[in-house]
């Protein structure tokens, strides 16, 4: 039997990926350019008893998915730049209270209202540093419609596995372009369930580290009673200011991601074996980069591409290794140099980092990247 094929927009694919992952609760607020996610899910979720809520604002949408997740739902919200700024307050709540959820953010021009219909990649730092305090961050940056579908599924899996908010951040080009997509069969892509408690209710503690760094999470209304707060908390969920507990809990929350980087970080290596010049790219920009690398190869330049799929945690190890053996790294991005800072941090001066930064709402052309590749001596 042949697989189901469709011609979809990135945002539509994201909605269908969420459904494949078992999403049964969505709350959002209208915002360009992510609205299609809401539109698809408002039609699809109730067909299987799922819930779609359009809330009064972006913060409320984030709050509603956190509440629903605590009640046992698999939850998603979608937004874009200004909405992401508003959601940051409660993304932090999701991190400290350790509530699984997926935040789908389409990157448009900014800051503020910026360019609502223009593409951008300027929210990537916001994914890690947007909410206050130390916290784990996972952010995926898909480059195609198919990959958006699959990365949304992976985001759900990661959020359940590590009990933390996960962001999926396509740029506006990926979110709005249409491509052929091949739907996986049910069961073809693994969908991870939430780790439920194995102890009886009277013994349950929501942050019981005897089960490891990611303690099981019970659902409200399932027979378990427990307390959840945004304050620094103890293993039983109640607030504390005891220095040693706060320190240990904060470190554990960050360690959930830091100790599992190899499980979380995904990337694509394209023609890297003998590459002397490497273009590091993510999202739609990687499509121009791939074209530029191909042309460079035709012209006898040993170029390759390292494509970031998981932006956070950042692929430090891979970039450090690359920096030690190439003549230069080219980084095209639709912001004024965000990923390039991470590359400089990882390269530690071992190789020059050449940036191409565009914030004019236009995509980065292969020609621009090719010219920059040729600047590497």
């Amino acid at each position, binding site marked *: 039997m042949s697989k189901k094929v469709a011609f979809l927009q990135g945002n539509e694919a994201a909605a269908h990926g969420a459904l494949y992952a078992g999403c049964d*609760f969505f*709350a959002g607020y209208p915002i360009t350019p992510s609205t299609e996610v809401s539109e698809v899910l408002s*039609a699809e*979720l*109730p*067909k299987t*008893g799922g*819930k779609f*809520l359009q*809330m*009064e*604002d972006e*913060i*409320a*949408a984030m*709050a*509603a*998915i*956190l*509440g*629903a*997740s*605590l*009640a*046992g*739902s698999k*939850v998603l919200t979608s937004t874009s730049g200004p909405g992401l700024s508003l959601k940051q*307050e*409660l993304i932090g*709540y999701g991190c400290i209270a350790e509530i699984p959820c997926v935040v789908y953010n389409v990157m448009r021009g900014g800051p503020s209202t910026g360019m609502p219909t223009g593409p951008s990649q300027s929210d990537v730092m916001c994914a890690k540093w947007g909410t206050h305090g130390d916290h784990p961050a996972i952010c995926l940056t898909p480059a195609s419609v198919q990959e958006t579908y699959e990365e949304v599924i992976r985001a759900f899996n990661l959020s359940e596995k590590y009990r933390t908010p996960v962001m999926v951040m396509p740029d506006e080009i990926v979110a709005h372009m249409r491509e052929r997509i091949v739907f996986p069969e049910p069961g073809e892509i693994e969908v991870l369930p939430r780790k439920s408690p194995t102890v009886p*209710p009277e013994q349950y503690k929501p942050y019981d580290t005897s089960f490891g760094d990611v303690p099981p999470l019970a*659902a*409200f*209304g*399932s*027979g*378990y*009673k*427990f*307390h*959840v*707060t*945004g*304050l620094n908390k103890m293993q039983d969920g*109640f*607030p504390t200011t005891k220095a040693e507990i706060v320190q240990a809990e904060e470190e554990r929350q960050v360690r959930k991601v830091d100790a599992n980087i190899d499980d979380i970080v995904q990337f694509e290596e394209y023609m890297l074996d003998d590459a002397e010049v490497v273009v590091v790219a993510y999202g739609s920009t990687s499509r121009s980069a791939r074209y530029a690398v191909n042309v460079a190869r035709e012209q006898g330049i040993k170029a390759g591409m390292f494509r970031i799929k998981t932006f956070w945690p950042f692929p430090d190890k891979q970039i450090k290794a690359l920096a030690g053996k190439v003549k230069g790294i080219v980084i095209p991005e639709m912001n004024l140099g965000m990923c390039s800072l991470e590359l400089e941090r990882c390269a530690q001066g071992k190789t020059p980092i050449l940036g191409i930064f565009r914030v004019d709402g236009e995509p980065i052309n292969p020609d621009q990247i090719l010219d920059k590749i040729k600047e590497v001596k």
Partner: protein
Amino acid sequence: MAFDYDKYLRPGKLPHIWCPGCGHGIVMKGLIRAMDTLKLKKEETAIVSGIGCASRLPGYIDCCTLHTAHGRAAAFATGVKMAKPEMNVILVGGDGDGTAIGGNHFIHACRRNIDMTYIIMNNYIYGMTGGQFSPCTPTGHKASTTPYGNPDPGFDIAKLAIGAGATFVARGTAFHANQIDKLIVEAIQHKGFSVVEILDDCPTTYGRRNKYKSVIEMMNRLKEVAVPVKAAEKMTAEQLQGKILTGVLYKEETKPEYTAEYAKVIERAKASK
């Protein structure tokens, strides 16, 4: 036999953080009595709050309790209720939390008429942060940030709730302790969004700045200004000057309830497949 509050409280989580003379404990006891009257199952009851002194209440009660971010209780609670409509969802918080930073979530929960009960402890002040004026601080009164008197007019929480579409609105006071559980019982039994405002006192940050010499004086004020709605019907406008109505102020039973309406959406969606 004395009422056994302990069966609803969390051992080891008391004493509470509230100052001597604060009325929040009176409200908590009223809520516990109401839960007992209604035989609410603890594991099927969610108590959700925001931030502030009153919002610490959920930590003391042995239910599914959710202490959220400042002002966001109604939005979190909406998520809980929509995910599990069979749960009893009760919101608690203060006047600053509910009507300032949480004002938008408050009015939209009223508008949706989602079956939850919101208990607002109105002590006219931001107590936890040291006594700044809230949207409920009366004009002219003193707060740590209105040293020359408050220039802002205050909200009438009940009118706000009714105007926004809540279908059950009641008001009590921390002085009239025996009425609190009765109002909460009726509010929880009501199918729709119910609001119970409890006029409360904050001797520490409000009373001392506004010439109340003691907690007793603050409690006496609540006793004096409160007029039951039934009694008010027989009073003249002049007699009602400076008084505050208490009891069930508004009840409407025809407006559709939100989770029931969404169940119909699910039915229509399934039929469209």
